[in-house]
């Protein structure tokens, strides 16, 4: 058993309006492990992910990334984030920019200051972006305007952007819930294959229980900001699901 990439203990976050989004969760992820979190909308799944990369500063937490204690100062966060890829529900790509430029945005953490104004990237950055495009199967589309692509392709641009970071940890927030079921399964399946292949630790928030069952190594059930279930897909029976989604849940 290898050392965990991420160790989260006693993570809690209360938003400024008083919403207790996360109320003390602890878990860890190992290299190559696909961890899925399931639960109702508003259960706190997104907040957990955003606390890990410091987009949201948690009220209270002890997080270790690659064995190192995470701090919340500006400079440290920039260095932390460039090793953590993030995939968004709404893709969050710039539709007016080309596919390649969007993927290169994953290299911003490595871009020297003088190169910034002219959208310049080093050969090393272009190499990483090209490799990421190849992994998601969009090499031929590199010059197209991202807005011209289909939804599934746009999310693959989002995946490539995260992979271009050459991350040690991948966070995906409902990565396929704005895609149709067939495309969703394809995109997620492809993402999971890449992660396993590269021994990449991955946390995926998922809406669809069947997808979590199919692709996750381990599942966390989140309810009202707390982890109420932790186990393998096989352990996820109807009783557990009713505990997470309420008594009306039916398969």
């Amino acid at each position: 058993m290898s050392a965990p990439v991420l160790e989260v203990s006693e993570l809690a976050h209360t938003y400024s309006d008083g919403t207790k989004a996360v109320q003390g969760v602890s878990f860890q992820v190992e290299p190559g492990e696909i961890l899925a979190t399931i639960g109702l909308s508003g259960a706190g799944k997104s907040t957990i992910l955003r606390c890990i990369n410091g987009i949201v500063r948690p009220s209270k937490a002890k997080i270790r990334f690659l064995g190192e204690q995470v701090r919340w100062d500006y400079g440290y966060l920039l260095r932390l984030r460039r090793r953590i890829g993030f995939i968004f529900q709404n893709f969050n790509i710039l539709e007016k920019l080309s596919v390649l430029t969007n993927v290169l945005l994953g290299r911003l953490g490595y871009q020297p200051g003088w190169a910034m104004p002219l959208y310049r990237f080093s050969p090393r950055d272009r190499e990483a972006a090209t490799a990421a495009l190849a992994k998601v199967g969009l090499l031929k589309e590199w010059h197209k305007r991202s807005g011209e692509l289909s939804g599934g392709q746009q999310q693959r641009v989002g995946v490539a952007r995260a992979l271009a970071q050459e991350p040690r940890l991948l966070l995906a927030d409902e990565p396929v819930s704005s895609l149709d079921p067939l495309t969703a399964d394809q995109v997620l399946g492809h993402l999971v294959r890449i992660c396993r292949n590269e021994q990449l630790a991955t946390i995926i928030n998922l809406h669809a229980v069947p997808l979590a069952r199919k692709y996750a190594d381990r599942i966390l059930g989140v309810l009202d900001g707390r982890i109420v279930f932790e186990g393998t897909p096989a352990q996820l029976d109807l009783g557990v699901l009713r505990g997470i989604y309420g008594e009306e849940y039916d398969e």
Partner: protein
Amino acid sequence: MSSLLLESRPVLPPRPRSPLAPLWAGVKVLFTALVVAYIVLALWHTGFNPWKLVEGAQRTKGLLAELLHPEWSIAGQLLKLMNETVEIALLGTLIAVLISFPLAFLGAKNLMLRSGPGRVAYFIVRFIFIILRAFEPVLLALLFVIMVGLGPFAGVMALGIHSVGMLGKLFSETIEGIDQGPVEAVLASGGNRFQVMWYGILPQVAPQFLAFSIYRWDINIRMSIVLGIVGAGGIGYMLLQYMSLFQFGKLATAFLIILAAVTILDWASAWLRTRLGQT
């Protein structure tokens, strides 16, 4: 659950009425009456009288006829001045774009209202925009003519300063309307504050910024003609001169050149802006 089968024809329930409704109705009537009264007052104060148009046209028939005979001999000189007018507008707009571009980020609510110093900067910048808009270009032109003397440079400065107020406001509001998603994406991949502006925001606003700038140039060309009348360069000054010397043939030439130039540039700017909208 209500039944999906309608047993009778559905009727809209009555609109909820506030107890203050009769008061509001009274206020509406009063307000309408005030507006109508002010319009009547304005007609009286301005001596509005369409009959004067007919009468005046008959009295000055001879002079007006001269307008139909433009003197083409001075067309070359006037075209040069028209070009100067366009150049004044171009430089004025350019100065305004360069100043208002960085300020616009400081004047955008969504970027600035999160921190204490940000708030202060936001209010200062927005206040500057309001003040600059209040300085009408003609007022500014008079000021700059006093400062730097008669001529086109005063016009450039007047348009530049006034346009900062207009463009800054439009640019800031464009930034306020962006999609926050790509901003978060840039942050999440380790981008710093400047990279957020340059990669997360700029691509979203660039086409609109360009369209606003071209439109502003278009407006500034018209304004620059008026500024000429107060001595701030370009073709405008000649209008005043020909008028006061009753040289209506030359005035006619100037009119036609202005009309043609403004029409062509108006059309060109609209064409450019629609092209920007499509990309």
